[in-house]
């Protein structure tokens, strides 16, 4: 249920994004989803990959600052109001969404969102109670 996301610290300079991607490509690791949070000086590259343990070890050995974070992949109906409805579930809860991004996933009429909650376990319980599907990690990593 819980997905392991890798985060990398990158300076906001030409070529700095390509290097870790090349490194993963060489080892045949597929990037399943990605989001970049950027400031004027640096960025945080967040990655969901096919083999996160191998990828983390590779990137660390190459000298990157790597952080592994637990995130959730949550389904939402792929139509107007789909995401709004999903977010309403958390509106009145103490659970905070630190950030989120979309996951490119082949599922007819369903979108998948990656959520970083401050409390993933509580979020899972809340989603289950609301009858919302949390995508299995095996399905996310292997395509």
């Amino acid at each position: 249920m819980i997905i392991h996301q890798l985060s990398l610290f990158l300076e906001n300079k030409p070529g700095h994004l390509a290097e870790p991607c090349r490194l993963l490509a060489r080892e045949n690791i597929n990037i399943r989803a990605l989001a970049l949070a950027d400031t004027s000086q640096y960025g945080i590259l967040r990655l969901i990959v096919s083999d996160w343990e191998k990828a983390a070890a590779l990137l660390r050995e190459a000298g990157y600052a790597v952080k592994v974070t637990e995130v959730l992949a949550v389904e939402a109906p792929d139509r107007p109001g789909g995401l709004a409805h999903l977010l309403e579930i958390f509106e009145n809860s103490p659970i905070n969404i630190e950030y989120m991004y979309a996951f490119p996933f082949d599922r007819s009429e369903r979108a998948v969102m990656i959520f970083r909650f401050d409390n993933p376990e509580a979020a899972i319980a809340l989603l289950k109670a609301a009858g919302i599907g949390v995508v299995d990690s095996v399905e996310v990593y292997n395509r």
Partner: protein
Amino acid sequence: MLATPVSIAAPFHPASAPDYVPLRQLRDLQLARLRATVRRAYHQVDLYRRRLDERGIRPDDVTSLDVIRLLPFTVKADLRDAYPFGLFASPLTEVVRLHASSGTTGKPIVVAYTREDVDVWTNAMVRTLASCGLGAGDVVQNAYGYGLFTGGLGAHYGAEGLGATVIPISGGNTDRQIMVMKDFRVTAICSTPSYFVHVMERARELGVDVRALPLKVGVFGAEPWSESMRRHIEADSGIKAYDIYGLSEIIGPGVASECAAQEGLHIFEDHFYPEIVDPETGEPVPDGEEGELALTTLSKHAMPMIRYRTRDITRFLTAPCACGRTIRRIQRISRRSDDMLIVRGVNVYPSQIETALLEVEGTLPHYQIILTRERGLDRMEVQVEVTAEIFSDRVGALEQLQMRLEQAIDRVTGLRVDVRLVEPRTIQRSEGKARRVSDRRPQ
């Protein structure tokens, strides 16, 4: 008669005997050696004779140790002007070794050793390593650079003289350093402190737990480092980190060393006579007050140094040391008068920045200070590498870290600076002395 050594945890090594000599005996020895040194300098080196004559001082006037304050100082420029052999007091037929400083500006400084000088140096380094608790049976990884730099061969001869097993690996090739450390069951490493921090960091990346290795002692020198950096190294690696001191102009490493007490460095003053002087006036400061260390060699033949101004700021620690050594202690050198930066009229030392960064939990001291001038105003940027420990996947957390670092530097130095977070290993690593400051201000 030797005083009975008072052991605090460390075993006594016979080579350390001169460290415990009764003070009266030590002063008599120093006076005899000072007279011989001044005589040799006067008769063999033009510069010294000229300067002593100018002051009307004859070698026979050295009748007490107090007379030393009448002798002229020697400064780095004197060594540079005498390049290459101008200050030698021995003919080359008696010189068995030359070393040279890297010479960041202009010509390097060349230093010479006779056979006896090499023996004195070895003796001082044996006592240094013994004072750091090493002995026969230790496996010493010598990661000081071998070559013209005095660090490598100085530590090498000392460790061999001690009867330890020496691995002359020199600096660099960090992955191999870690392999050797593990496979050869290394118990002690000699390097600059900043290089050891780099080794620890690389070991972590390779999944090697330094704490689980037999390594127990680090003998660190060749650059100023702070007490907080020592605590960081010791907590992170589980070793005892000792500070040693020396400079090529005097002999190389082996001028002074910490002991098991880790409270100041004992100067091997039977070979190197220390004074603390006011850096402005050159007058001796009262015992215990801070000033510049000036050293006079007492046993060197090829290149005697009289009152050499080290530019290193320290003070005498006047209380007796818990280890029982009678030779004097100086406080660890955290700054050099050369290192002082003047930023918007404020005096700043790189070591202050280091202390501030370490105050903020988890920050490794890989940093660089960059000085620029924008529209006539000095700007100081401190680049800090983001390590896995301080990295967060949330932008807000990183922004907060940046702010905490800026505030800590402001508290210590009184200066508003910009902290810039940079990728790990983007700040150039030095295998020797760390280069902390890049001053890009127009002169």
